């Protein structure tokens, strides 16, 4: 018999007999109905407590803010998606301004430019599928257009979050967006820059992933 069948058979023919499943009441996860402003305050407080940086901006002002942030870090290159409106907006913006870094478009399979991604990209900018106020988390939903490594390999990750898409809890977000109906290749909650406390519980940021996480909140 295969190990699969042997394992399943042993589990099915349990000597203790059949087990009854208890009810699961998720209401302990419920939170009061916060307003968008309250959610944003909570999100900002929580993500900043783990070294995330939040900039509140607007539909018309975010590119200016982004340019300032990247200039202050001396970033030379910014990785963008090909089709997404964020990438589109940045590409048309560079036509008439010079304060943005060089834009790199992620439009080739990783195999053809892996070394450059690891060594030559200073920052990556992605969209989000909303955020979670309680835990200060961004929901990332990578796609063919916005690949997985954009938010992982460059030392600076910039995420664009619409304030109207902030949920109170993880449970709210998952139920409201009906995740169970179909999950993408990879979905993520990101709550701050990469960190470790493996050396004597001393926090250090940027161990394997981004050293900085910057959130542009569009209000």
């Amino acid at each position: 018999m295969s190990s699969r069948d042997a394992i399943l058979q042993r589990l099915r023919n349990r000597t203790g007999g059949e087990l009854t499943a208890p009810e699961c009441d998720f209401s302990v996860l419920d939170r009061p109905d916060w307003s968008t402003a309250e959610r944003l305050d909570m999100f900002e407080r929580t993500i900043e407590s783990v070294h995330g940086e939040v900039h509140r901006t607007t539909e018309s002002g975010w590119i200016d803010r982004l340019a300032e942030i990247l200039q202050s870090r001396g970033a030379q290159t910014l990785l963008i998606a090909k089709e997404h409106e964020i990438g589109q907006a940045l590409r048309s913006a560079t036509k008439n301004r010079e304060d943005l870094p060089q834009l790199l478009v992620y439009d080739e399979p990783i195999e053809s430019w892996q070394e450059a991604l690891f060594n030559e990209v200073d920052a990556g900018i992605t969209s989000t599928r909303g955020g979670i106020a309680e835990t200060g988390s961004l929901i990332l939903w990578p796609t063919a257009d916005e690949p997985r490594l954009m938010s992982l390999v460059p030392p600076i990750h910039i995420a664009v979050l619409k304030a109207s898409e902030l949920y109170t809890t993880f449970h709210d977000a998952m139920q409201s967006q009906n995740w169970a109906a179909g999950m993408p290749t990879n979905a993520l909650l990101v709550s701050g820059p990469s960190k470790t406390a493996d050396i004597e519980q001393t926090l250090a940021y940027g161990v394997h992933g981004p050293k900085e996480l910057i959130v542009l909140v569009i209000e």
Partner: protein
Amino acid sequence: MSETAHGSSHHSAHHIDVKEFHPRARAAIHNPQVRQNFRKAMDGLMSKRKSAFEGWDLETLRDLGANIRMRALASLPDLLEQLEQKLTENGITVHWAADGDEACRIVRDICVARDAKTAIKGKSMVSEEMELNHYLEEQGIEALESDLGEYIVQLAEETPSHIIMPAIHKNTGEISQLLHDKTGTDLSNDVEYLTANARLQLREKFRNADVGISGVNFAVAETGTLCLVENEGNGRMTTTVPPCHIAVTGIEKVVPKLEDVTALLALLTRSATGQHITTYFNMISSPRKANELDGPEEVHVVLVDNGRSTIYQDDELLDTLRCIRCGACMNHCPVYTRVGGHTYGTTYPGPIGKILMPHMVGLDEGRHLPTASSLCGACGEVCPVKIPIPDLLVRLRQESVDGDKLHPAKVRGHGAKRSGVEAMIWKGWSWMHARPGLYRLGTSLGARFRKLQPGKVGAWTQYRTAPKLAPKTLHERMKERGQ
């Protein structure tokens, strides 16, 4: 060499004698460095956990956690089949392994089929159970740990001393010396510098690894999703950069609903490190799709039994399988805090190790594990899924002396601590207590000749004074008072 013979030899080569708990405990207790490192870390983890649950109805949340895990276990075989079907539909290949050796061979076969020479690993306690790193190295495949703590432990050629913080037994100075000796970094107590160097070294490894190997925190049956909880980003690197990802997981990690992970995640990170959430919660449901530009082209899941389906048979022992591996029980354990993780000599140390490992190594090998506890109850009180750890310790103690007719022993290696003399003494004790005349005679003789009682009673008087009978029996004193 045959496969089975090979499997057993690779396990015996790195064998630590679990039975030698007491000598190791004595050595650890007299090692001020070990004492200090653990005390400091555990105090920190306990207070962080406490503040992370402020404002929560923790009892109700723990009830929910326990119920979610029990609901999953109640239909475990069906859920595993559903998980297999969903993962397969999603393009992920599912393998089943009866034990650690078979799981190792499955991983090797995947590597060989891809002609893989290097594997980068994310943190996985199941792979520690399998002793996968040693096995792969024997097969000529480099297996490098990428979680910073695991990387340190691997460089030191040690095993993790804590399931969440593998290198917690070392302080910064010791780690600095180790990294200096092994990787040539400067001696420094600057944790940022040490971390930055590890980042540099490991980034190259991520880029060039043929295979990424990770564990799984929760496997969701309804969507076929593998969930990984981490802070460093090495888990994301491991599961995204190499062209092939192999996830190894115990069969008990499956939950029916995606919704279930919200409550378990809330409990896990707060219980483990006092974080509201970890930096990354990584949910993987498929390999790279045709139009996607990154991610592994192949994803495999190895479902490992390794004794779990045997634990599953018994209603009481079953609770062991609820565990979500947060480590809170060890953080709060007065024994673990004093002797440290290596003393146990087992993959999982501390209270969870004491109730889980006897099933994996046998109660004969693990005979001292259930008694390495004061039964203070802290582990049971903090467990996020309410595993009655103290009750299970008592059950295993009973099993190790073979219980009685009402409590038939079941665990492999049971009865290893049963002594004929001790059994006879208890039998005599119960016989005498059932006969009042004889009982009075016995106790009054005992009281008269109390001076003859031995001052040393085996292991008991190693750390305690011997019990002494009172000069007068209770019956005699009652009589004197005229009652």
